[in-house]
Protein backbone atom coordinates (compact mmCIF):
# COMPACT_ATOMS: atom_id res chain seq x y z
CA UNK A 1 0.00 0.00 0.00
CA UNK A 2 1.26 3.43 -0.95
CA UNK A 3 1.00 5.96 1.83
CA UNK A 4 -0.86 9.18 1.15
CA UNK A 5 2.22 11.44 1.02
CA UNK A 6 3.93 9.36 -1.60
CA UNK A 7 0.73 9.20 -3.64
CA UNK A 8 0.56 12.99 -3.66
CA UNK A 9 4.15 13.23 -4.86
CA UNK A 10 3.45 10.70 -7.57
CA UNK A 11 0.45 12.66 -8.76
CA UNK A 12 2.35 15.95 -8.76
CA UNK A 13 5.13 14.36 -10.76
CA UNK A 14 2.76 12.92 -13.31
CA UNK A 15 1.46 16.43 -14.03
CA UNK A 16 4.96 17.54 -14.94
CA UNK A 17 6.02 19.56 -11.92
CA UNK A 18 9.61 20.14 -13.02
CA UNK A 19 10.87 23.07 -15.06
CA UNK A 20 11.86 21.08 -18.14
CA UNK A 21 8.40 19.92 -19.23
CA UNK A 22 6.06 22.68 -20.44
CA UNK A 23 2.67 23.35 -18.85
CA UNK A 24 0.19 20.83 -20.22
CA UNK A 25 -2.08 22.34 -22.84
CA UNK A 26 -5.78 22.48 -21.92
CA UNK A 27 -8.05 20.05 -23.74
CA UNK A 28 -10.03 22.81 -25.43
CA UNK A 29 -6.87 24.50 -26.68
CA UNK A 30 -5.55 21.24 -28.07
CA UNK A 31 -8.80 20.51 -29.88
CA UNK A 32 -8.86 24.00 -31.39
CA UNK A 33 -5.22 23.75 -32.50
CA UNK A 34 -5.90 20.44 -34.22
CA UNK A 35 -9.20 21.62 -35.68
CA UNK A 36 -7.51 24.66 -37.27
CA UNK A 37 -5.21 22.40 -39.23
CA UNK A 38 -8.18 20.83 -41.03
CA UNK A 39 -8.53 23.34 -43.88
CA UNK A 40 -11.93 22.27 -45.12
CA UNK A 41 -13.32 22.26 -41.59
CA UNK A 42 -12.17 25.86 -41.22
CA UNK A 43 -13.85 26.75 -44.52
CA UNK A 44 -16.99 25.07 -43.17
CA UNK A 45 -16.73 27.04 -39.95
CA UNK A 46 -16.52 30.34 -41.86
CA UNK A 47 -19.52 29.38 -43.99
CA UNK A 48 -21.50 28.61 -40.84
CA UNK A 49 -20.48 31.88 -39.18
CA UNK A 50 -21.64 33.67 -42.32
CA UNK A 51 -24.98 31.82 -42.37
CA UNK A 52 -25.65 32.48 -38.68
CA UNK A 53 -24.74 36.13 -39.19
CA UNK A 54 -27.36 36.27 -41.95
CA UNK A 55 -29.91 34.72 -39.63
CA UNK A 56 -29.12 37.06 -36.72
CA UNK A 57 -29.03 40.24 -38.78
CA UNK A 58 -31.92 39.24 -41.07
CA UNK A 59 -34.03 42.32 -40.21
CA UNK A 60 -31.12 44.60 -41.21
CA UNK A 61 -30.11 42.68 -44.34
CA UNK A 62 -33.47 41.86 -45.89
CA UNK A 63 -34.53 44.58 -48.31
CA UNK A 64 -38.22 43.73 -47.91
CA UNK A 65 -40.58 41.84 -45.69
CA UNK A 66 -40.67 38.14 -46.46
CA UNK A 67 -44.40 38.27 -47.04
CA UNK A 68 -44.75 41.50 -49.03
CA UNK A 69 -46.57 40.52 -52.22
CA UNK A 70 -46.33 42.58 -55.39
CA UNK A 71 -48.21 40.77 -58.17
CA UNK A 72 -47.34 43.21 -61.01
CA UNK A 73 -43.66 42.40 -60.39
CA UNK A 74 -43.98 38.64 -60.30
CA UNK A 75 -41.33 36.25 -61.69
CA UNK A 76 -38.84 39.07 -62.31
CA UNK A 77 -35.23 37.97 -62.90
CA UNK A 78 -32.45 39.06 -60.53
CA UNK A 79 -31.73 42.78 -60.71
CA UNK A 80 -30.29 45.55 -58.55
CA UNK A 81 -33.69 45.96 -56.97
CA UNK A 82 -34.30 42.25 -56.38
CA UNK A 83 -30.91 40.55 -55.99
CA UNK A 84 -32.41 37.10 -56.44
CA UNK A 85 -35.47 38.02 -58.49
CA UNK A 86 -39.09 37.67 -57.40
CA UNK A 87 -41.40 34.69 -57.04
CA UNK A 88 -44.84 33.91 -58.49
CA UNK A 89 -46.64 36.48 -56.36
CA UNK A 90 -43.92 39.09 -56.55
CA UNK A 91 -42.19 38.42 -53.23
CA UNK A 92 -38.51 39.30 -53.08
CA UNK A 93 -36.56 36.01 -53.15
CA UNK A 94 -33.46 37.57 -51.57
CA UNK A 95 -35.38 38.73 -48.51
CA UNK A 96 -37.12 35.38 -48.24
CA UNK A 97 -33.81 33.51 -48.42
CA UNK A 98 -32.33 35.76 -45.71
CA UNK A 99 -35.34 35.29 -43.42
CA UNK A 100 -35.40 31.65 -44.43
CA UNK A 101 -31.92 31.18 -42.99
CA UNK A 102 -33.42 31.96 -39.56
CA UNK A 103 -36.07 29.30 -39.94
CA UNK A 104 -33.93 26.64 -41.61
CA UNK A 105 -31.03 27.05 -39.19
CA UNK A 106 -33.24 27.02 -36.12
CA UNK A 107 -35.17 23.99 -37.33
CA UNK A 108 -31.86 22.20 -37.85
CA UNK A 109 -30.53 23.20 -34.46
CA UNK A 110 -33.62 22.44 -32.38
CA UNK A 111 -34.35 19.16 -34.19
CA UNK A 112 -30.78 18.00 -33.62
CA UNK A 113 -30.96 19.08 -29.97
CA UNK A 114 -34.15 17.07 -29.44
CA UNK A 115 -32.62 14.03 -31.12
CA UNK A 116 -29.41 14.28 -29.12
CA UNK A 117 -31.18 14.83 -25.80
CA UNK A 118 -33.38 11.78 -26.37
CA UNK A 119 -30.56 9.69 -27.78
CA UNK A 120 -28.18 10.42 -24.92
CA UNK A 121 -30.88 9.95 -22.30
CA UNK A 122 -32.14 6.64 -23.67
CA UNK A 123 -28.71 5.31 -24.63
CA UNK A 124 -27.07 6.08 -21.30
CA UNK A 125 -30.05 4.87 -19.26
CA UNK A 126 -29.92 1.57 -21.11
CA UNK A 127 -26.18 1.24 -20.62
CA UNK A 128 -26.26 2.29 -16.97
CA UNK A 129 -29.08 0.06 -15.77
CA UNK A 130 -28.44 -2.85 -18.10
CA UNK A 131 -30.54 -6.00 -17.78
CA UNK A 132 -34.24 -5.66 -18.45
CA UNK A 133 -34.26 -1.87 -18.73
CA UNK A 134 -31.57 -2.14 -21.37
CA UNK A 135 -33.47 -4.90 -23.14
CA UNK A 136 -36.72 -2.96 -23.25
CA UNK A 137 -35.18 0.32 -24.33
CA UNK A 138 -33.11 -1.29 -27.04
CA UNK A 139 -36.04 -3.31 -28.39
CA UNK A 140 -38.04 -0.08 -28.59
CA UNK A 141 -35.13 1.63 -30.35
CA UNK A 142 -34.97 -1.22 -32.84
CA UNK A 143 -38.68 -0.92 -33.55
CA UNK A 144 -38.40 2.78 -34.30
CA UNK A 145 -35.27 2.19 -36.38
CA UNK A 146 -37.08 -0.36 -38.52
CA UNK A 147 -39.36 2.27 -39.98
CA UNK A 148 -37.90 4.01 -43.00
CA UNK A 149 -37.03 7.34 -41.38
CA UNK A 150 -38.41 9.62 -44.04
CA UNK A 151 -41.70 7.69 -44.32
CA UNK A 152 -42.13 7.84 -40.58
CA UNK A 153 -41.34 11.55 -40.61
CA UNK A 154 -43.91 12.16 -43.35
CA UNK A 155 -46.52 10.10 -41.54
CA UNK A 156 -46.19 11.92 -38.24
CA UNK A 157 -45.94 15.33 -39.86
CA UNK A 158 -49.19 14.60 -41.67
CA UNK A 159 -51.09 13.92 -38.45
CA UNK A 160 -49.82 16.79 -36.31
CA UNK A 161 -50.73 20.41 -36.73
CA UNK A 162 -48.42 22.08 -39.23
CA UNK A 163 -46.23 24.58 -37.42
CA UNK A 164 -42.53 25.37 -37.35
CA UNK A 165 -42.25 24.09 -33.80
CA UNK A 166 -43.93 20.78 -34.64
CA UNK A 167 -41.67 20.26 -37.63
CA UNK A 168 -38.61 20.68 -35.40
CA UNK A 169 -40.03 18.33 -32.82
CA UNK A 170 -41.02 15.60 -35.26
CA UNK A 171 -37.65 15.63 -37.06
CA UNK A 172 -36.00 15.28 -33.65
CA UNK A 173 -38.40 12.56 -32.52
CA UNK A 174 -37.71 10.41 -35.56
CA UNK A 175 -33.93 10.66 -35.60
CA UNK A 176 -32.74 9.74 -32.10
CA UNK A 177 -32.49 5.91 -32.38
CA UNK A 178 -29.09 5.65 -34.05
CA UNK A 179 -27.70 8.09 -31.47
CA UNK A 180 -29.13 6.11 -28.58
CA UNK A 181 -27.43 3.00 -29.92
CA UNK A 182 -24.16 4.80 -30.40
CA UNK A 183 -24.15 6.29 -26.89
CA UNK A 184 -25.03 2.94 -25.34
CA UNK A 185 -22.27 1.18 -27.27
CA UNK A 186 -19.74 3.85 -26.32
CA UNK A 187 -20.55 3.68 -22.63
CA UNK A 188 -20.54 -0.11 -22.55
CA UNK A 189 -17.13 -0.27 -24.17
CA UNK A 190 -15.67 2.56 -22.07
CA UNK A 191 -16.83 0.81 -18.93
CA UNK A 192 -14.57 -2.11 -19.77
CA UNK A 193 -11.52 -0.03 -20.70
CA UNK A 194 -8.33 -0.19 -18.65
CA UNK A 195 -8.46 3.42 -17.51
CA UNK A 196 -11.90 2.91 -15.99
CA UNK A 197 -10.65 -0.17 -14.25
CA UNK A 198 -7.62 1.75 -13.05
CA UNK A 199 -9.80 4.52 -11.68
CA UNK A 200 -11.95 1.97 -9.90
CA UNK A 201 -8.88 0.26 -8.48
CA UNK A 202 -7.69 3.61 -7.14
CA UNK A 203 -10.97 3.86 -5.26
CA UNK A 204 -12.79 6.45 -7.38
CA UNK A 205 -16.51 6.75 -6.69
CA UNK A 206 -19.13 5.76 -9.26
CA UNK A 207 -20.01 9.40 -9.84
CA UNK A 208 -16.38 10.29 -10.45
CA UNK A 209 -15.98 7.44 -12.90
CA UNK A 210 -19.12 8.41 -14.77
CA UNK A 211 -18.53 12.16 -14.95
CA UNK A 212 -14.76 12.24 -15.13
CA UNK A 213 -13.87 9.15 -17.16
CA UNK A 214 -16.83 7.82 -19.10
CA UNK A 215 -18.89 10.83 -20.17
CA UNK A 216 -16.02 12.99 -21.50
CA UNK A 217 -14.87 10.09 -23.64
CA UNK A 218 -18.38 9.26 -24.79
CA UNK A 219 -19.08 12.89 -25.65
CA UNK A 220 -16.63 13.17 -28.56
CA UNK A 221 -18.61 11.01 -31.00
CA UNK A 222 -21.83 12.62 -29.76
CA UNK A 223 -20.51 16.09 -30.60
CA UNK A 224 -19.40 14.95 -34.04
CA UNK A 225 -22.69 13.27 -34.76
CA UNK A 226 -24.67 16.27 -33.47
CA UNK A 227 -22.85 18.57 -35.88
CA UNK A 228 -23.62 16.36 -38.84
CA UNK A 229 -27.17 15.84 -37.60
CA UNK A 230 -27.91 19.57 -37.74
CA UNK A 231 -27.06 19.43 -41.44
CA UNK A 232 -29.19 16.32 -41.82
CA UNK A 233 -32.13 17.96 -40.06
CA UNK A 234 -31.88 20.98 -42.38
CA UNK A 235 -32.01 18.58 -45.32
CA UNK A 236 -35.02 16.77 -43.83
CA UNK A 237 -36.86 20.02 -43.27
CA UNK A 238 -36.17 21.16 -46.81
CA UNK A 239 -37.34 17.83 -48.24
CA UNK A 240 -40.54 18.08 -46.20
CA UNK A 241 -41.11 21.67 -47.26
CA UNK A 242 -40.31 20.73 -50.83
CA UNK A 243 -43.12 18.18 -50.71
CA UNK A 244 -45.40 20.83 -49.28
CA UNK A 245 -45.51 19.28 -45.81
CA UNK A 246 -42.96 21.44 -44.04
CA UNK A 247 -42.94 24.98 -42.74
CA UNK A 248 -46.37 26.48 -43.57
CA UNK A 249 -46.82 29.56 -45.77
CA UNK A 250 -46.10 32.44 -45.65
CA UNK A 251 -43.04 31.63 -43.53
CA UNK A 252 -40.00 31.12 -45.70
CA UNK A 253 -37.64 28.22 -45.20
CA UNK A 254 -35.11 27.37 -47.87
CA UNK A 255 -37.11 24.27 -48.76
CA UNK A 256 -40.46 26.05 -48.98
CA UNK A 257 -39.03 28.78 -51.23
CA UNK A 258 -37.74 26.03 -53.49
CA UNK A 259 -41.12 24.33 -53.46
CA UNK A 260 -42.85 27.52 -54.55
CA UNK A 261 -40.44 27.85 -57.47
CA UNK A 262 -40.93 24.30 -58.66
CA UNK A 263 -43.89 25.11 -60.90
CA UNK A 264 -42.05 28.05 -62.49
CA UNK A 265 -38.82 26.23 -63.18
CA UNK A 266 -38.61 27.28 -66.81
CA UNK A 267 -39.81 30.90 -66.47
CA UNK A 268 -38.03 31.65 -63.20
CA UNK A 269 -35.17 29.24 -62.40
CA UNK A 270 -33.72 31.73 -59.89
CA UNK A 271 -36.45 30.93 -57.36
CA UNK A 272 -35.12 27.39 -57.01
CA UNK A 273 -31.43 28.08 -57.63
CA UNK A 274 -30.63 30.39 -54.74
CA UNK A 275 -32.27 28.56 -51.82
CA UNK A 276 -30.76 25.34 -53.18
CA UNK A 277 -27.27 26.84 -53.00
CA UNK A 278 -27.90 27.93 -49.41
CA UNK A 279 -29.10 24.49 -48.32
CA UNK A 280 -26.22 22.81 -50.06
CA UNK A 281 -23.51 25.12 -48.65
CA UNK A 282 -24.87 24.92 -45.11
CA UNK A 283 -25.18 21.14 -45.03
CA UNK A 284 -21.73 20.80 -46.60
CA UNK A 285 -20.29 23.16 -43.98
CA UNK A 286 -21.82 21.18 -41.11
CA UNK A 287 -20.41 17.96 -42.55
CA UNK A 288 -16.93 19.44 -42.94
CA UNK A 289 -16.97 20.88 -39.43
CA UNK A 290 -18.14 17.51 -38.13
CA UNK A 291 -15.31 15.79 -39.97
CA UNK A 292 -12.79 18.27 -38.56
CA UNK A 293 -14.14 17.77 -35.06
CA UNK A 294 -13.88 14.01 -35.41
CA UNK A 295 -10.17 14.28 -36.14
CA UNK A 296 -9.58 16.98 -33.53
CA UNK A 297 -11.43 15.21 -30.72
CA UNK A 298 -9.95 11.77 -31.24
CA UNK A 299 -7.22 11.40 -28.63
CA UNK A 300 -5.76 8.40 -30.43
CA UNK A 301 -4.81 10.47 -33.44
CA UNK A 302 -1.53 12.10 -32.43
CA UNK A 303 -0.38 15.14 -34.31
Amino acid at each position, binding site marked *: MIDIERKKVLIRDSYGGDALTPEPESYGKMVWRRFRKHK*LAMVGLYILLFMYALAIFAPLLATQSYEAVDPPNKLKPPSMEHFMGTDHIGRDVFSRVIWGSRISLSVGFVAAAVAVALGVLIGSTAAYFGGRVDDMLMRFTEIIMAFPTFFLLLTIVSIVERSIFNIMLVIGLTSWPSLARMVRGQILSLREQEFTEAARALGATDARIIFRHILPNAMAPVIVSTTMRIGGAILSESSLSFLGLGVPEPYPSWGSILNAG*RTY*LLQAPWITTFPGIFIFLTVLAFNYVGDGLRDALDPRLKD
Partner: protein
Amino acid sequence: MRSYIIRRILQMIPLLIGISIVNFTIMHLAPGDPVNLLVERNATAEQRERIKELYGLNDPIHIQYIRWISHVLRGDFGKSFVDGQSVSKTILERLPYTLYLNFLIMVVIYLIAVPVGIISALKQYSKFDHIMTTLAFLGQAVPSFWIGLILIYFFGLKLDWLPISGVGTIGLNMRTAGFWATFADRAAHVVMPVAVVAFGSLTGVARYMRSSMLEVIRQDYVRTARAKGLPDKVVIVKHALRNALLPIVTLLGSELPLLFGGMVVIESIFSWPGIGLLSIRAILQRDYQIVMAINMMGAVLMVLGNFLADLLYVVVDPRIKYS
Protein backbone atom coordinates in the same frame (compact mmCIF):
# COMPACT_ATOMS: atom_id res chain seq x y z
CA MET B 1 -26.30 -22.68 -39.77
CA ARG B 2 -29.89 -23.86 -39.72
CA SER B 3 -30.29 -23.25 -36.01
CA TYR B 4 -28.84 -19.76 -36.48
CA ILE B 5 -31.42 -18.97 -39.13
CA ILE B 6 -34.26 -20.35 -37.05
CA ARG B 7 -33.17 -18.35 -34.02
CA ARG B 8 -32.93 -15.16 -36.03
CA ILE B 9 -36.39 -15.70 -37.50
CA LEU B 10 -37.82 -16.30 -34.04
CA GLN B 11 -36.19 -13.08 -32.83
CA MET B 12 -37.85 -11.19 -35.67
CA ILE B 13 -41.35 -12.09 -34.51
CA PRO B 14 -41.52 -9.86 -31.40
CA LEU B 15 -39.84 -7.09 -33.35
CA LEU B 16 -42.47 -7.29 -36.08
CA ILE B 17 -45.28 -7.34 -33.52
CA GLY B 18 -43.79 -4.25 -31.89
CA ILE B 19 -43.54 -2.54 -35.25
CA SER B 20 -47.17 -3.27 -36.07
CA ILE B 21 -48.34 -1.94 -32.69
CA VAL B 22 -46.34 1.28 -33.02
CA ASN B 23 -47.57 1.71 -36.57
CA PHE B 24 -51.19 1.18 -35.60
CA THR B 25 -50.91 3.48 -32.59
CA ILE B 26 -49.39 6.34 -34.57
CA MET B 27 -52.18 6.20 -37.11
CA HIS B 28 -54.81 6.18 -34.40
CA LEU B 29 -53.32 9.21 -32.72
CA ALA B 30 -54.28 11.10 -35.85
CA PRO B 31 -56.78 13.80 -35.00
CA GLY B 32 -60.04 14.06 -36.87
CA ASP B 33 -62.63 11.37 -37.25
CA PRO B 34 -61.79 8.97 -40.08
CA VAL B 35 -65.49 8.66 -40.59
CA ASN B 36 -65.38 12.11 -42.20
CA LEU B 37 -63.56 10.57 -45.14
CA LEU B 38 -66.19 7.90 -45.53
CA VAL B 39 -69.42 9.87 -45.50
CA GLU B 40 -70.88 12.75 -47.45
CA ARG B 41 -70.36 16.11 -45.83
CA ASN B 42 -74.07 16.58 -45.10
CA ALA B 43 -74.58 13.09 -43.66
CA THR B 44 -76.87 12.82 -40.67
CA ALA B 45 -75.61 11.64 -37.30
CA GLU B 46 -77.48 8.43 -37.87
CA GLN B 47 -75.73 7.73 -41.18
CA ARG B 48 -72.36 8.48 -39.61
CA GLU B 49 -73.11 6.07 -36.81
CA ARG B 50 -74.04 3.35 -39.31
CA ILE B 51 -70.80 3.80 -41.25
CA LYS B 52 -68.81 3.76 -38.01
CA GLU B 53 -70.49 0.50 -37.03
CA LEU B 54 -69.88 -0.92 -40.49
CA TYR B 55 -66.13 -0.19 -40.38
CA GLY B 56 -65.85 -1.25 -36.75
CA LEU B 57 -64.69 2.19 -35.67
CA ASN B 58 -66.71 2.02 -32.46
CA ASP B 59 -64.80 -0.96 -31.11
CA PRO B 60 -62.07 -0.45 -28.52
CA ILE B 61 -58.63 0.18 -30.02
CA HIS B 62 -57.13 -3.22 -29.16
CA ILE B 63 -60.02 -5.00 -30.88
CA GLN B 64 -59.48 -2.81 -33.92
CA TYR B 65 -55.77 -3.64 -33.82
CA ILE B 66 -56.36 -7.38 -33.62
CA ARG B 67 -58.79 -7.22 -36.50
CA TRP B 68 -56.34 -5.16 -38.56
CA ILE B 69 -53.31 -7.36 -37.85
CA SER B 70 -55.21 -10.59 -38.53
CA HIS B 71 -56.15 -9.23 -41.94
CA VAL B 72 -52.61 -7.97 -42.56
CA LEU B 73 -51.23 -11.43 -41.86
CA ARG B 74 -53.44 -12.69 -44.67
CA GLY B 75 -52.07 -10.00 -46.95
CA ASP B 76 -55.15 -7.82 -46.69
CA PHE B 77 -54.53 -4.20 -45.74
CA GLY B 78 -58.20 -3.24 -45.97
CA LYS B 79 -59.88 -0.76 -48.26
CA SER B 80 -58.77 2.77 -48.94
CA PHE B 81 -60.91 5.30 -47.07
CA VAL B 82 -60.71 7.61 -50.06
CA ASP B 83 -61.54 5.57 -53.14
CA GLY B 84 -62.70 2.27 -51.64
CA GLN B 85 -60.09 0.28 -53.59
CA SER B 86 -58.26 -2.62 -52.00
CA VAL B 87 -55.06 -1.23 -50.48
CA SER B 88 -53.06 -4.37 -51.28
CA LYS B 89 -54.12 -4.17 -54.92
CA THR B 90 -53.22 -0.49 -55.19
CA ILE B 91 -49.79 -1.13 -53.68
CA LEU B 92 -49.10 -4.15 -55.85
CA GLU B 93 -49.95 -2.09 -58.92
CA ARG B 94 -47.38 0.55 -57.91
CA LEU B 95 -44.69 -1.71 -56.52
CA PRO B 96 -43.19 -2.90 -59.85
CA TYR B 97 -42.37 0.69 -60.83
CA THR B 98 -40.51 1.35 -57.60
CA LEU B 99 -38.68 -1.99 -57.76
CA TYR B 100 -37.72 -1.38 -61.38
CA LEU B 101 -36.29 2.04 -60.55
CA ASN B 102 -34.58 0.73 -57.42
CA PHE B 103 -33.01 -2.16 -59.27
CA LEU B 104 -31.49 0.10 -61.93
CA ILE B 105 -30.23 2.50 -59.25
CA MET B 106 -28.53 -0.32 -57.34
CA VAL B 107 -26.87 -1.65 -60.50
CA VAL B 108 -25.55 1.78 -61.42
CA ILE B 109 -24.36 2.52 -57.88
CA TYR B 110 -22.43 -0.72 -57.50
CA LEU B 111 -21.03 -0.73 -61.03
CA ILE B 112 -19.50 2.69 -60.46
CA ALA B 113 -18.85 2.76 -56.72
CA VAL B 114 -16.90 -0.49 -56.43
CA PRO B 115 -14.17 0.31 -58.99
CA VAL B 116 -14.01 3.92 -57.77
CA GLY B 117 -13.54 2.78 -54.19
CA ILE B 118 -10.84 0.30 -55.16
CA ILE B 119 -8.87 2.87 -57.15
CA SER B 120 -9.21 5.40 -54.31
CA ALA B 121 -7.80 2.86 -51.87
CA LEU B 122 -4.94 1.70 -54.08
CA LYS B 123 -3.96 5.29 -54.79
CA GLN B 124 -4.63 6.68 -51.34
CA TYR B 125 -4.03 10.45 -51.08
CA SER B 126 -3.63 10.76 -54.85
CA LYS B 127 -5.44 13.44 -56.82
CA PHE B 128 -8.10 10.89 -57.78
CA ASP B 129 -8.64 9.97 -54.15
CA HIS B 130 -8.96 13.63 -53.15
CA ILE B 131 -11.48 14.36 -55.89
CA MET B 132 -13.52 11.34 -54.84
CA THR B 133 -13.46 12.40 -51.19
CA THR B 134 -14.66 15.86 -52.17
CA LEU B 135 -17.40 14.39 -54.34
CA ALA B 136 -18.47 12.18 -51.45
CA PHE B 137 -19.02 15.25 -49.29
CA LEU B 138 -20.86 17.02 -52.10
CA GLY B 139 -23.08 14.00 -52.72
CA GLN B 140 -24.10 13.90 -49.08
CA ALA B 141 -24.85 17.60 -48.83
CA VAL B 142 -26.71 18.27 -52.05
CA PRO B 143 -30.49 17.97 -51.70
CA SER B 144 -31.61 15.35 -54.20
CA PHE B 145 -34.66 17.34 -55.22
CA TRP B 146 -32.45 20.30 -56.10
CA ILE B 147 -30.20 18.21 -58.34
CA GLY B 148 -33.36 16.76 -59.84
CA LEU B 149 -34.72 20.22 -60.64
CA ILE B 150 -31.41 21.32 -62.14
CA LEU B 151 -31.30 18.26 -64.39
CA ILE B 152 -34.94 18.80 -65.40
CA TYR B 153 -34.19 22.44 -66.19
CA PHE B 154 -31.19 21.74 -68.41
CA PHE B 155 -31.80 18.35 -69.98
CA GLY B 156 -35.57 18.34 -69.91
CA LEU B 157 -36.63 21.91 -70.55
CA LYS B 158 -33.72 23.88 -72.05
CA LEU B 159 -32.11 21.24 -74.23
CA ASP B 160 -35.24 19.10 -74.51
CA TRP B 161 -33.17 15.90 -74.63
CA LEU B 162 -34.95 13.90 -71.96
CA PRO B 163 -38.56 13.50 -70.89
CA ILE B 164 -39.20 14.98 -67.44
CA SER B 165 -41.89 12.74 -66.05
CA GLY B 166 -43.41 9.30 -66.05
CA VAL B 167 -42.09 5.86 -66.94
CA GLY B 168 -42.61 6.02 -70.68
CA THR B 169 -44.53 7.82 -73.38
CA ILE B 170 -48.20 6.89 -73.12
CA GLY B 171 -49.35 4.77 -76.04
CA LEU B 172 -45.83 3.92 -77.08
CA ASN B 173 -45.10 0.25 -76.53
CA MET B 174 -43.65 -2.83 -78.18
CA ARG B 175 -46.68 -3.33 -80.35
CA THR B 176 -47.00 0.21 -81.66
CA ALA B 177 -43.33 1.14 -82.02
CA GLY B 178 -41.24 -2.02 -81.94
CA PHE B 179 -38.64 -3.15 -79.46
CA TRP B 180 -35.83 -0.66 -79.99
CA ALA B 181 -37.98 2.46 -80.05
CA THR B 182 -39.70 1.31 -76.85
CA PHE B 183 -36.40 0.50 -75.24
CA ALA B 184 -34.99 3.94 -76.11
CA ASP B 185 -38.11 5.63 -74.80
CA ARG B 186 -38.07 3.77 -71.45
CA ALA B 187 -34.33 4.35 -71.08
CA ALA B 188 -34.71 8.08 -71.71
CA HIS B 189 -37.35 8.29 -68.99
CA VAL B 190 -35.24 6.52 -66.41
CA VAL B 191 -31.92 8.32 -66.92
CA MET B 192 -32.58 11.36 -64.75
CA PRO B 193 -34.20 9.67 -61.73
CA VAL B 194 -31.42 7.08 -61.65
CA ALA B 195 -28.72 9.73 -62.01
CA VAL B 196 -30.12 11.83 -59.15
CA VAL B 197 -30.37 9.00 -56.63
CA ALA B 198 -27.14 7.36 -57.74
CA PHE B 199 -25.21 10.60 -57.27
CA GLY B 200 -26.48 10.91 -53.72
CA SER B 201 -25.77 7.32 -52.61
CA LEU B 202 -22.91 6.28 -54.85
CA THR B 203 -20.29 8.25 -52.99
CA GLY B 204 -21.22 6.61 -49.71
CA VAL B 205 -20.80 3.12 -51.14
CA ALA B 206 -17.52 4.16 -52.77
CA ARG B 207 -16.20 5.43 -49.42
CA TYR B 208 -17.20 2.16 -47.82
CA MET B 209 -15.44 0.17 -50.52
CA ARG B 210 -12.38 2.37 -50.11
CA SER B 211 -12.05 1.82 -46.38
CA SER B 212 -12.73 -1.89 -46.73
CA MET B 213 -10.00 -2.19 -49.36
CA LEU B 214 -7.58 -0.09 -47.29
CA GLU B 215 -8.10 -2.39 -44.34
CA VAL B 216 -7.51 -5.52 -46.39
CA ILE B 217 -4.33 -4.42 -48.17
CA ARG B 218 -2.69 -3.88 -44.79
CA GLN B 219 -3.33 -7.48 -43.77
CA ASP B 220 -0.54 -9.98 -43.31
CA TYR B 221 -1.73 -12.34 -46.01
CA VAL B 222 -1.52 -9.57 -48.59
CA ARG B 223 2.00 -8.74 -47.47
CA THR B 224 2.86 -12.45 -47.65
CA ALA B 225 1.50 -12.67 -51.18
CA ARG B 226 3.60 -9.67 -52.16
CA ALA B 227 6.66 -11.06 -50.37
CA LYS B 228 6.56 -14.31 -52.23
CA GLY B 229 6.85 -12.33 -55.45
CA LEU B 230 3.35 -12.53 -56.88
CA PRO B 231 2.61 -9.84 -59.46
CA ASP B 232 0.66 -6.85 -58.17
CA LYS B 233 -2.40 -7.69 -60.25
CA VAL B 234 -2.73 -11.15 -58.78
CA VAL B 235 -2.27 -9.85 -55.25
CA ILE B 236 -4.90 -7.18 -55.68
CA VAL B 237 -7.50 -9.16 -57.56
CA LYS B 238 -7.11 -12.58 -55.97
CA HIS B 239 -6.04 -11.81 -52.42
CA ALA B 240 -7.22 -8.34 -51.56
CA LEU B 241 -10.30 -7.65 -53.67
CA ARG B 242 -12.15 -10.83 -52.82
CA ASN B 243 -11.90 -10.10 -49.13
CA ALA B 244 -12.60 -6.40 -49.46
CA LEU B 245 -15.84 -7.15 -51.30
CA LEU B 246 -17.30 -9.06 -48.34
CA PRO B 247 -18.68 -6.07 -46.43
CA ILE B 248 -19.92 -4.53 -49.68
CA VAL B 249 -22.03 -7.59 -50.42
CA THR B 250 -23.72 -7.28 -47.07
CA LEU B 251 -24.28 -3.58 -47.60
CA LEU B 252 -26.72 -4.59 -50.35
CA GLY B 253 -29.10 -6.06 -47.80
CA SER B 254 -29.25 -2.96 -45.67
CA GLU B 255 -29.18 -0.50 -48.56
CA LEU B 256 -32.32 -1.79 -50.22
CA PRO B 257 -34.93 -0.57 -47.72
CA LEU B 258 -33.10 2.74 -47.38
CA LEU B 259 -33.51 3.39 -51.06
CA PHE B 260 -37.13 2.38 -50.75
CA GLY B 261 -37.71 5.16 -48.22
CA GLY B 262 -35.81 7.74 -50.22
CA MET B 263 -38.08 7.24 -53.20
CA VAL B 264 -40.76 9.67 -52.03
CA VAL B 265 -38.93 12.79 -53.10
CA ILE B 266 -37.56 11.40 -56.34
CA GLU B 267 -40.87 9.92 -57.48
CA SER B 268 -42.55 13.18 -56.63
CA ILE B 269 -40.14 15.21 -58.79
CA PHE B 270 -40.30 12.90 -61.79
CA SER B 271 -43.97 11.89 -61.39
CA TRP B 272 -42.83 8.29 -61.21
CA PRO B 273 -45.96 6.22 -60.50
CA GLY B 274 -44.45 4.07 -57.71
CA ILE B 275 -44.87 3.60 -53.98
CA GLY B 276 -43.29 6.97 -53.14
CA LEU B 277 -45.79 8.95 -55.17
CA LEU B 278 -48.60 6.82 -53.78
CA SER B 279 -47.49 7.48 -50.21
CA ILE B 280 -47.29 11.24 -50.63
CA ARG B 281 -50.75 11.26 -52.20
CA ALA B 282 -52.11 9.08 -49.39
CA ILE B 283 -50.56 11.34 -46.78
CA LEU B 284 -51.98 14.50 -48.32
CA GLN B 285 -55.43 12.89 -48.57
CA ARG B 286 -55.15 11.41 -45.08
CA ASP B 287 -55.77 7.96 -46.51
CA TYR B 288 -54.50 6.26 -43.37
CA GLN B 289 -55.10 2.70 -44.54
CA ILE B 290 -52.56 3.17 -47.32
CA VAL B 291 -50.09 5.07 -45.12
CA MET B 292 -50.23 2.29 -42.52
CA ALA B 293 -49.70 -0.37 -45.15
CA ILE B 294 -46.69 1.40 -46.69
CA ASN B 295 -45.10 2.04 -43.29
CA MET B 296 -45.62 -1.59 -42.34
CA MET B 297 -44.14 -2.82 -45.61
CA GLY B 298 -41.18 -0.49 -45.33
CA ALA B 299 -40.45 -1.67 -41.78
CA VAL B 300 -40.77 -5.34 -42.70
CA LEU B 301 -38.42 -4.78 -45.63
CA MET B 302 -35.94 -3.13 -43.30
CA VAL B 303 -36.05 -6.04 -40.86
CA LEU B 304 -35.70 -8.56 -43.67
CA GLY B 305 -32.92 -6.51 -45.25
CA ASN B 306 -30.95 -6.52 -42.01
CA PHE B 307 -31.53 -10.24 -41.62
CA LEU B 308 -30.37 -10.81 -45.18
CA ALA B 309 -27.29 -8.66 -44.59
CA ASP B 310 -26.32 -10.67 -41.50
CA LEU B 311 -26.97 -13.91 -43.32
CA LEU B 312 -24.89 -12.87 -46.31
CA TYR B 313 -22.10 -11.92 -43.96
CA VAL B 314 -22.10 -15.36 -42.46
CA VAL B 315 -22.24 -16.97 -45.89
CA VAL B 316 -19.43 -14.98 -47.47
CA ASP B 317 -17.09 -14.85 -44.48
CA PRO B 318 -16.16 -18.31 -43.23
CA ARG B 319 -14.40 -16.85 -40.18
CA ILE B 320 -17.69 -15.80 -38.62
CA LYS B 321 -19.41 -18.36 -36.46
CA TYR B 322 -23.18 -18.57 -36.26
CA SER B 323 -23.52 -17.74 -32.65
